[in-house]
């Protein structure tokens, strides 16, 4: 594929490459607090600040609650504002996440996905981001360091788009992506700046000619209208994500959409998953295909807002679909991704049988064979009249 920008190939961990992306974005402010496994992002960025490689005002806040609070203040002042967090840090931000999105502030935040306590655990699952799924933030997921780098840069454009103006979480799997070294293609600093462009906020607290009031009290007479406008902005996100993903592809050769389909066209059974597990699942698909099984994969990139119709159309015609959730809702009705996929299918093709597999909590590994066994169970479900066990746990001791 032809590309417009020169790139260099580097060996970096996920955290290192996110730090590099942040350096290249050169945000006006970064207000952040360290937490495993996000720590290197903040540490590396501190070094860029100390070495004068960025113009960023770096605010070493005393908690994640203050990190997001300061991001709100900075973004309302017209700054390109970034932070990064994980797990309990994201949970501590919870109150202010809603304020950031409802105030329509285009903050970009890498989230290094990690299990929520208790028991305390530092390893990967998606319970942190899933806990924030209704916070009004856009959520992008990446399979590897390359995608996380690309997503971080695109997130700026998506967040600041005039039809969107919403904050974005760029999710990367803790340790699996954040701490593993991979080969990554990096754009030049100039190419990144050209891609993201100059940020021109509509309002700023720091415009004395036109003072603004941000965060007023809105009661029964106006609150609902604020919320409807927010919902309308969410409706615009999918188009903008695709538009930005296409343009990014024109420049780098790596195009992005809402999700990626792998051998899905003629598949009979498929798996839907997020993050690094999709890399493993791809191997399972290849292996099963070589055995004559018509297996496919849908790797979801944009989880919030949820592109329900597009996903259901892509899954339409399958016999059964296995939804891999790296988080539980404890609702007894399955994981968060499962609930969304099931409801999307109901509207488009109720003949597809959805089956949920909750896996990998607290960093428990999932391997190719375990995912292959999911496909085999899906083949059985396809032949059965009804799904006997809609919610299943894999890789756990009973």
């Amino acid at each position, binding site marked *: 594929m032809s590309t417009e920008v020169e790139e260099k190939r580097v060996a970096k961990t996920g955290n290192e490459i996110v730090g590099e992306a942040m350096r290249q974005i050169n945000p*006006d*402010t970064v*207000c952040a607090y360290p937490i495993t496994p996000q720590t290197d992002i903040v540490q590396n960025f501190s070094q860029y600040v100390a070495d004068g490689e960025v*113009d*960023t*005002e770096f*605010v*070493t*806040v*005393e*908690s994640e*609650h*203050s*990190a997001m*609070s*300061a*991001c*709100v*203040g*900075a*973004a*309302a*002042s*017209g*700054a390109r*504002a970034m932070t990064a967090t994980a797990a309990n840090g994201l949970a501590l931000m919870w*109150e*202010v996440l809603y*304020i950031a999105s409802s105030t329509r502030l285009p903050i970009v935040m890498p989230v290094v996905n990690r299990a929520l306590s208790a028991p305390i655990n530092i390893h990967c699952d998606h319970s942190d981001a899933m806990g924030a799924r209704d916070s009004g933030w856009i959520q992008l997921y990446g399979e590897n360091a390359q995608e996380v780098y690309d997503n971080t840069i695109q997130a700026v454009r998506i967040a600041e788009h005039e039809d969107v103006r919403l904050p974005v979480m760029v999710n990367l799997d803790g340790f699996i992506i954040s701490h593993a070294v991979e080969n990554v293609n990096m754009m030049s600093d100039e190419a990144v700046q050209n891609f993201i462009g100059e940020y021109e906020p509509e309002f700023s*607290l*720091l*415009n*004395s000619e036109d*003072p*603004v*009031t*941000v*965060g*007023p*009290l*809105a*009661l029964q007479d*106006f609150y609902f209208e604020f919320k409807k406008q927010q919902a309308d902005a969410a409706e615009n996100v999918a188009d903008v994500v695709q538009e930005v993903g296409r343009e990014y592809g024109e420049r780098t050769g790596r195009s992005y959409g809402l999700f990626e389909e792998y051998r899905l066209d003629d598949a009979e059974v498929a798996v839907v998953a997020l993050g690094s597990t999709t890399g493993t699942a791809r191997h399972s698909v290849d292996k099963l295909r070589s055995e004559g099984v018509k297996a496919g994969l849908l790797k979801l990139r944009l989880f919030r807002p949820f592109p329900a119709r597009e996903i259901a159309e892509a899954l339409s015609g399958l016999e059964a679909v296995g939804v891999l959730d790296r988080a539980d809702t404890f609702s007894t009705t399955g994981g968060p991704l499962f609930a969304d996929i099931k409801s999307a299918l109901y509207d488009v093709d109720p003949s597809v049988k959805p089956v949920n597999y909750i896996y990998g909590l607290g960093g428990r590994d999932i391997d190719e064979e375990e995912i292959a066994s999911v496909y085999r169970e899906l083949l059985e479900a396809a032949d059965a009249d009804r799904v006997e066990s809609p919610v299943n746990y894999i890789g756990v001791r009973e």
Partner: protein
Amino acid sequence: MNLKDYARKEPRLSPGHRLCAGCAASTVARLIMSASENPAVVGCATGCLEVSTTIYPYTSWKDSFIHNAFENVAATISGVEAAYRSFRRQGKLDEDFDFIAFGGDGGTYDIGFQSLSGAIERGHDMVYVCYDNGAYMNTGIQRSSATPKGASTTTSPAGNEIPGKEQKRKEITDIVAAHGIEYAAQTAPWRPQDIIKKAEKAFAVQGPAFLNVLAPCPRGWRSENDKSIEISRVAADTCFWPLFEVEEGEWKLNYQPREKKPVTDWLEMQGRFDHLFQDENEHLLEDIQEQVDERWQMIKNRCGVEE
């Protein structure tokens, strides 16, 4: 400028807000704003001042204003000030701004304490103003760590077994001063020139400065609407609310009553202390007087005031 000149300045907190009659918070906010010489960004913690001055689609603030949540006004203004510094460094802005954070005692002494302490330690250039009305007045008079001992509030009600709030109040001005900042002061609206002078000093500081301002609340204190300023004066004359400042570590007393009045003079103006005047609670009045005396003596010692 004298007080008349200040009074003639265009108010930066407009009338028409919906604070209660007799509420001192608006008096305090207006005086603070009158001491600012630059355009400002005003942050406000959730509370009476916030909900009453920015009811959408109206605002009483002439300057830019941001409300984020209850416990994070200091962190929010940290972010605003960080953006400002970044823009100045990048040459995108060349105007001076004042950054002001207002919080009630709940948003300052209690839930916002961590955010405040963090912002002070980081050295953001801001003036933090606590309007201390001694309870969570916005939610209906619940006790805070600023509530004086003995006060009856809706979560420390005077009952048959427990005579109001049992604990003494936290001294936030001392705690903030202990961060080693350039300027921290305590003041009250009965002396507007004291508020203005201290606000001017606070604005002159390059870094964080802190003002703790007594703000009588007729609803919560069960006092007369037209007595708020008078109550704040009696608070100083009884030495319940001394006016002092801590400038680069030096403590200075700004008001010494000619004749120190008994604290009961202050307590009896407020219905929230009524139960203390029942015979069986006499010992509490003695305790409260003793605490006020101890505190007054401590402040005099720190300020190097001879007897």
